[in-house]
Every structure is written in structure tokens, then in C-alpha cells.
């Protein structure tokens, strides 16, 4: 028996904010060691928070 995961990875709340610690080309390395593709967002640097979904960063968060 397989029950639904606690969060659906397709849907809205599975897009998560994560902090980039290193940028390597189009790839960002996140605090937890996972990587995310940065090609669809502008000017991301180490320390930025990005919204990640399905392996791709969709936005840079404003931290005001």
C-alpha cells in the first residue's frame, strides 16, 4: 500500500524557498546540498533565496 506523500510535488505548496550557497554555471547548490537549475531566473548569487519547483528555480524571493 502506498499512501499519498505528505506533499504533492506537482502542486503549489511543493514549490519551496531554498537558499543558494554556490552558483556553478546554470546550477545552484542549495543549503541542503541539493541542486537547482537557475536558467529561468535572473542574476542569482550565493545567499539568494529562490523558489524551487521540479528541479528548477522559478523566482527569486524578496526578503524585505
Amino acid at each position, binding site marked *: 500500500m502506498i499512501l*499519498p506523500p505528505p*506533499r*504533492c510535488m506537482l502542486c503549489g505548496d511543493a*514549490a519551496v524557498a531554498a537558499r543558494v550557497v554556490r552558483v556553478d554555471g546554470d546550477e545552484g547548490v542549495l543549503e541542503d546540498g541539493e541542486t537547482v537549475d537557475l536558467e*529561468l531566473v*535572473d542574476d542569482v548569487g550565493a545567499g539568494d533565496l529562490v523558489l524551487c519547483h521540479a528541479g528548477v528555480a522559478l523566482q527569486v524571493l524578496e526578503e524585505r
Partner: protein
Amino acid sequence: MRFVDEFRSRRLADALRAELAALVEAGRPVRLMEVCGGHTHTIYKHGLTDLVPPEVDFLHGPGCPVCVIPMGRVDDALSLAERPNVLFTTFGDMLRVPGGRGSLLEAKARGADVRMVYSPLDALALARAHPEREVVFFAVGFETTAPSTALTLLRARHEGVSNFSVFCNHVTIAPPLRAILDTPGLAVDGFVAPGHVSAVIGTEPYDFIARDYGKPVVVSAFEPVDILQSVAMLVRQLREGRCEVENQYTRVVRREGNPRALAAMAETMELRETFEWRGLGEIPWSGLRLRDAFAPFDAEARYELPGARVADPKACQCGEVLVGAIKPWQCRVFGTACTPEHPLGTCMVSSEGACAAFHAYGRLQVPA
């Protein structure tokens, strides 16, 4: 955790509850549709139905991408997965969605090579690693997910990966909202619009709801305080006689969305003339397919698919749940013939589905 803890603050939630109590007119119902399954999940998980005034009624909209995939498309996916030499990749939630002749998980049990991935980029990596296999990715989701598919297609073309294709079932959010608004007799006073779809498409695509239908819209994030604030913003608009598109999720959503993501989608995909939605039927210009330039990567062009329409089980009332006509617990098979362990309808499959969310968090509090 930044952007999580502060949006689960009891102090802020209490303040918003007080604000809402002051805004709502006693005895006058306010029916708000949360479009996204992520919102539905938060509403039940955090018990928001008990925190808002009794006049506020949440209707659960069509924004769970797993829930709206018709059974015929699942059967098409099964036929792809069962082809010899195909390595079929899918997001985890689609594994259990029942088609007319079973699920992908059952096909896997019968020997099909079905693998779960977290990103279409992972599927492309599998294609690179297994050049002797035909790797197909089951692309499902709204505009939140479509950019990752678009980016993957651009990479596949750039790298010349010839053993990779996409079975495209991406859908767009605005057309079903229009279909719901055109449903005769449906009473919705305002919409909580999906935050992460809006991170891509921006807020402009919702303008028609306020302009043409006179309903307020608030684009909302997904934590409980976010949703309470969005409800308060909607009720305030209604109280003041306004109908505007407002943005509660300002930390992520810009008016213009993400132009790069939209450009990648536009380069790789185009609207289908019509697409079938579970529970809503055919909706014109609501689904995406690959452009002709990407035909070599289009599973629908590369392989022959059954393409049959499959009717939902007669007892299943997912369609009525998906347009907010009935609550999950009002479905005749909720919690009996249809459970998370043995889902009959898609709303019970995904954790974002209204029925699964209610079953997980709210089923002990079924209203009398």
C-alpha cells in the same frame, strides 16, 4: 524556517481572525473558491475552516493537476509505459491515478519500467544514461510545472538527445476558471488564486475575473497566515464593494510573472484547441502541446496512442467536487468505496486533492 515560521504565527493568525470577525456580516455567507490544491491542503491541515467565521465557506477549485487528468490520458500513459524498450518517467503522484485499465503502479507491478522522478531534468538524465532505451516523461501540471518541461525540451534539443520524448498534459489555469464562472447557478463570491502558478504567469491573467465577472481575486501564498490574510483581503473587497486582483504573495509574485519561464514555454509549447478536464469536460484552449518544431520530442507524434475517452466511474463525484458543487464528504463514495488506500476518483489520489486532504485532516469533523 524563513518564510514558514512567521506565516504560521498564532499571534498573526489571531489578529487576522479578529479582523475577519469584524469584516464579515453576520448571517451573510461568503463563498470563496481556493483554486489551488496546495491551498486546499493547507486549509484542512491547519483547520482553517474552524478558524474563519462560520459565514466563510471554502469551495475547492480545479487546481490539483493530478485530479483533473482524465482517465483516457492515464490509459494513454499506460500504453506508452507498456511499450517494449520504453522507460517511462513520471512524478510520484501520477503513479496511483487510476485510468480505465489500472494505474501506472499496477503496470510497473506487471513489469513495465516505470520510474518516479522529481524533475523532467532527471528524466533527461536517464535518457543520457540509457541511450539504448526510449525515455518518455509524463508531463503533468499547470504553469508552475510547465517551465521545467520547457527547459528540459530546450536542453534535449540543444544536446541532441534523440531517445527522449514528452507526453504533454500541461494545462493552464485561466480557462477552467472561466468555465467555472460560466457554470449556471454556481455561487462564488471571490477567488483565492494560486501563488506559484502566478509566480510564472503573474497577476494579469486574472484581470478578466474582476473585469468581466465582477469577482474579487487575491493571489495567495500557502501558509495558514497567508490564506487567512487572503481571505480577509477578499472579504474586505466585498465589504467595500470592490472587485480587484490583489496580490498577497508579494514576496514571490510579480505583476509580470517570470518572463523567462513564459518565453521557454512559448518556444516549446502551444495551446491545444481543446483539452478534456476531469469533472469539467472539454475546455477550449486550456491544454498545452508541443510545437511542431519539437515534434521529435513529442510522444504523441512518435508513438501511436489509444486516445480513447474513458468515462469516470458512475459512483465517482469528483467532477462536482472539482467545481465546488459538493463538499468532499458529500460524495456518495467518500471514505467507503473511495479511500486514500483505494482511490476511486482522482480527488482522493493526490494529497492536494480535496477528498484526500479532507480524509487526512478533517474527516472526524463532518458537519451535521
